[in-house]
């Protein structure tokens, strides 16, 4: 079954764009949460990670901060 993937991002952060590009290239469906306009999403991200840096990925509960390709691949099993 496909894993649930959430990306917490802002439109202006270059690593966020690269993360999303990477997911698209690998045909991974994901939910994008733009934390710049969404207080609830910011709070959710801060609660999950204890920090405010973007991007953050939530892959079936595995939290990855930043565009760490190796960790993302591992969590996705690709």
């Amino acid at each position: 079954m496909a894993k649930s993937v959430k990306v917490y991002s802002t439109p202006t952060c270059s690593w966020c764009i690269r993360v999303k590009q990477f997911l698209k290239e690998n045909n991974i469906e994901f939910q994008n949460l733009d934390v710049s306009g969404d207080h609830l999403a910011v709070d959710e991200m801060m609660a999950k990670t204890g920090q405010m840096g973007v991007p953050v990925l939530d892959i079936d509960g595995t939290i990855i901060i930043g565009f760490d390709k190796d960790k993302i691949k591992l969590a996705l099993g690709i």
Partner: protein
Amino acid sequence: MHIYDLIIIGAGPAGITASVYAARKQLDFLVISLDVGGQAAWSGDIENYTGYQFITGQELVQKFEEHMRGYGTMLKENEEVLELTKDVQVIRLKTNKADYQARSVIIASGKKSKELGVVGEREFKNRGLTYCAICDGPLFAGKDVAVIGGGNSALDAALQLIKIAKHIYMVNNALSLSGDVIMRRKVEETANVTILNNSSVSAVLGDKFVKGIKIKHGLQEKELAVQGVFVEIGLIPNSVFVRGVEKNQKNEIKINLRNETNLPGIFAAGDVTDVPEKQIIIAAGEGSKAVLSAAHYLLKNN
């Protein structure tokens, strides 16, 4: 171990342009970089790169990257060079992931944000304290924030935050703001900005996240309640890993007009060097110049 003709360190405007020229020279080469785009990826609006009357830093970097990848260039991303040493015949590189050898190297590792060096800075990094207003600014919607610094990058950060944050304190250790007059005026004329000159930060405070900063103004010390701290006090060159290469007082790598360092086979380009003026277009030009010099060197020392 395989010996490359050339290894390019860094994938900002200098490193990427170098890679395009190296590919066209059909060199056996490799690019090693922590990130793609370097400081250009953090730039807001760019209006002085020839060919583009207006482009954002991200869009320009995306175009740079496409150009680089169009040649099938091997890019080792997320990899940091920790040591660079030169033997008689070969240059050795040690990264956080592997060892490499090359006949020539171009150092295009750029600059990074200078740290404040105060209590709480490391602890609260990404917990309210950031060095990248364009990346993290939008997270501080409706909050009170402090921008530390008084030069162009601090003004740029303040201007971006004006539309987002509730109130902005500019903490500047000089007697007045420096930087471009146009930007300075815009900041000074904005109602939700308070400029605190002749003031320096002595500590960053908080629990899980930033709650304030301690400011020194002369002999007085006071606390300022803010949820965000944007550090914009300048840049330092990423040149620590380079041994035996001459640097100036600012730790920039000294180069001549041909981008040669004092060590034959080791070239440098862009913001990490002592080239006067740090601009995207200058870094790009320097990157191309460095490869042309390296190609000459390789031919001569074949």
